[in-house]
């Protein structure tokens, strides 16, 4: 009996190992069934879209690569070889320099390259994790660098003010990179190093800045003395063009529109009626009209508005128009961010005894801008695309340069290839920006994700 019991208790229920899932629900086959052929309608749609993709891709590849002509001296030569069935990339590569630099003289192109290179190097510390004081470096890159870059682009006679500002820019650049190198090698900021070396470390906090200012002034004097010796050949803005001028206009537009938009948005939400009315009027006026009218207004009316002796060049008029227009749009973007901040944040800031500007710069604005990063970058992308409109008032930006190819006797009528190339270029630029904004959203918004 006991034996029987024991054996009964030994025969416990053992489930068989579960069968693998049916082969048609896993792996590639399962994925295809689930996502492409889940129902008769879906199967039809899949086949239809495969056909559409095939037609588009095969024709494009055939036109752009297989039948394309890469080496030719004129469009006639291209047409003789393949007719219209293949792209004539020879024309695009012949004009590549113009697409990028406009009609800037070949011997002076190094200045444009140097200027953009300087800007990139100036901004590079943003991507170094160990560097402190990134805001100061960024601010100097946005506010001070334009004087140096502008002089590199335009050249010509330097007035005393420009001499000073160019020197300040060069000195700031040297200062910030000395700071960056010190941070990377020793982990201490330039400020601390100067204070320590000068022996001011034991002094009161408010006098510690003097050796730093002194060092900067010494550097500035040295740079000023050095820079007065060189002068660049003047280049009329009529020669500027291509991608270079597109980037200049949209870069200035971006640098101006963000701070101006913040100020306008704060003004719009201000409790002071006069300031609010002005801000609302400005924003609504320029948001309700097309950019073209603002550009035409700038081109036809700015000369009327200014005293007779001032004759602004066309690119300056276009930049004014782009800045006004994009500031109004940016103001609404920032306002959206401000409205998303709960009232408790304002009240908490006030309860801490912060005044208006401290409340805004320390508590509200950082949160609002972080929330609005996708929209702000979206505005930047829109600005870069809208910059092409300056071609309508006759500035040789990238788009007008692309269009100008077809007027050249050698490449007469070559429209499609340059425009196709330009579309790809803009797509790459804008796509990178939008992907970068998604990346920023993920990294900066990490604290706000609720799991």
């Amino acid at each position, binding site marked *: 009996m006991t034996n029987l019991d024991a054996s009964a208790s030994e025969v416990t229920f053992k489930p068989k190992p579960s069968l693998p899932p049916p082969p048609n629900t896993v792996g590639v086959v399962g994925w295809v069934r689930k996502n492409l052929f889940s129902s008769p309608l879906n199967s039809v749609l899949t086949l239809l879209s495969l056909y559409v993709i095939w037609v588009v891709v095969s024709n494009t590849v055939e036109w752009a690569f297989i039948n394309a002509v890469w080496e030719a001296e004129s469009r006639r030569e291209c047409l003789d070889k393949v007719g219209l069935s293949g792209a004539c990339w020879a024309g695009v590569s012949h004009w590549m320099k113009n697409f990028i630099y406009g009609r800037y003289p070949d011997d002076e192109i190094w200045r444009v390259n140097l200027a953009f290179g300087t800007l990139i190097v100036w901004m590079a510390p943003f991507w170094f994790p160990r560097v402190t004081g990134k805001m100061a470096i960024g601010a100097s890159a946005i506010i001070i660098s334009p004087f140096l870059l502008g002089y590199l682009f335009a050249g010509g006679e330097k007035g005393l003010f420009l001499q000073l500002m160019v020197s300040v820019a060069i000195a700031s650049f040297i200062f910030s990179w000395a700071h960056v190198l010190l941070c990377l090698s020793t982990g201490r900021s330039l400020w601390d190093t100067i204070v320590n070396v000068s022996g001011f470390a034991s002094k009161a906090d408010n006098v510690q800045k003097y050796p730093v200012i002194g060092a900067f002034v010494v550097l500035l004097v040295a740079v000023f003395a050095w820079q007065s010796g060189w002068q660049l050949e003047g280049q009329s803005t009529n020669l500027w063009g291509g991608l270079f001028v597109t980037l200049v206009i949209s870069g200035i537009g971006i640098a101006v529109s963000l701070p101006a938009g913040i100020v306008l948005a704060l003004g719009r939400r201000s409790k002071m009626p006069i300031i609010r009315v002005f801000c609302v009027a400005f924003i609504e006026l320029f948001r309700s009209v097309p950019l073209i009218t603002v550009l035409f207004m700038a081109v036809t009316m700015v000369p009327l508005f200014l005293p007779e002796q001032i004759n602004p060049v066309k690119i300056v008029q276009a930049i004014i128009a782009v800045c006004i227009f994009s500031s109004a749009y940016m103001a609404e973007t920032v306002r959206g961010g401000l409205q998303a901040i709960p009232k408790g944040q304002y009240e908490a800031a006030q309860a801490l005894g912060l005044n208006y500007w401290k409340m805004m710069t320390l508590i509200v604005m950082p949160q609002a801008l972080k929330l609005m990063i996708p929209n702000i970058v979206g505005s930047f992308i829109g600005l870069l695309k809208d910059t092409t409109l300056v*071609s309508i008032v006759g500035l040789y930006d990238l788009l007008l340069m692309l269009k100008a190819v077809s007027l050249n006797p050698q490449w007469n009528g070559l429209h499609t290839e340059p425009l196709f190339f330009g579309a790809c270029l803009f797509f790459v630029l*804008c796509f990178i920006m939008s992907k970068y904004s998604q990346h920023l959203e993920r990294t900066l918004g990490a604290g706000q994700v609720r799991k």
Partner: protein
Amino acid sequence: MAVVDRGASGQGSSFSEIVNDQRYRSVFYQIVVAVVVMWAGWYLFSNTAHNLEARGMSAGFGFLGSTAGFSIAFSVIPYEAGDSYLWVYLVGITNTLLLAVVAIIFSTLIGFFVGVLRLSKNWLISQLAAWYVEIIRNTPLLLQILFWYLAVFAILPRPKQSIDVFGLGIFELNNRGFYFPAPVLGELFWLTMATLLAAIVVAYGIAVWAKKRQNDTGERFPVFWTAVGIVFGAPLVMFVITGSPLEWDIPALKGFNFRGGGSVPPAFCAVFIALVVYHACYVAEMVRAGILSVSHGQTEASYSLGLKPGLTLRLVIIPQAMRAIVPPLISLWMNVVKNSSLAIAVGYPDLVAVFMQTSLNQSGHAIEIVAMVMLFYMTVSLTISGALNYYNKLVQLKER
């Protein structure tokens, strides 16, 4: 003693106290801003007056009555060289509105379609829609317009080798433009239109009655199909009774070009297609975001109440999605109106082209003309945003 004196007598008079006292501070800042803005306005005004005088130009709207000596390639309302500048303004406005309205209609329809495709469970379809959106919205609209015009519509064949668009022999596309049948209204056609209006009013009345009855008794009435029947049926009956007073003027090749029918120039086609393709991708994104914004719990709740998927979509999902779709959609419509001004790049005679460019160059009245053009666009924007606010009030969540 001295300190007390200064405090007593300097109350409110010392500059720093005005700036820092909460009672006066905001007034002080506002006065400063107002003075700066007024000074800037006066500065611009005096410069302008001086410049106008120096160039011997007159100000005022008197020029609107004088004749404009140029011709316009395409106009909705009849125009001949020699009409007044005011008429040119109206021609520009109607041309702009024609382009904008058809572009709004088509981009909204196509955008909804693509937005739904973007959410399809079929991976390939949703990827295709996603890449359409990515490619189109990361390329400048002006470049797209030029591409359509220079690479597609400018190289169309001559009238004799016209492309027969739908294979029906009545829609023709060639390098002079797009030709389509135009309606020729008979004498009694107004009766059909009147019946249509009356039918719409009746259908609306039925909808109101049906809603009231459902609220009172819970019984449902097939409003939609009744309304369709009345709105389409009644005018059709009237149309047949009055003897079909409508004919189509079909374009036909005579000599070197098509005669008869309606037509739009290639520039119109290029800008229209570019506007539609460009804005449809934004509409698609709005539709997608709107549908995704309705939480899945709503669908589940509706299923558990026993509603079928079709009813769930119509009664639960779409009304809530529309609340998120309509505000951005209406501001997109404003953008279509504004972006239609890019038509100037390919020579479609819209308001900016005929008035702000040609008329301005000829008459030189920069300030008045720019102001009038801005006034038009602002009126359109205000009208559209007024409609937006009205709709928003109707559908927003009623929170108490």
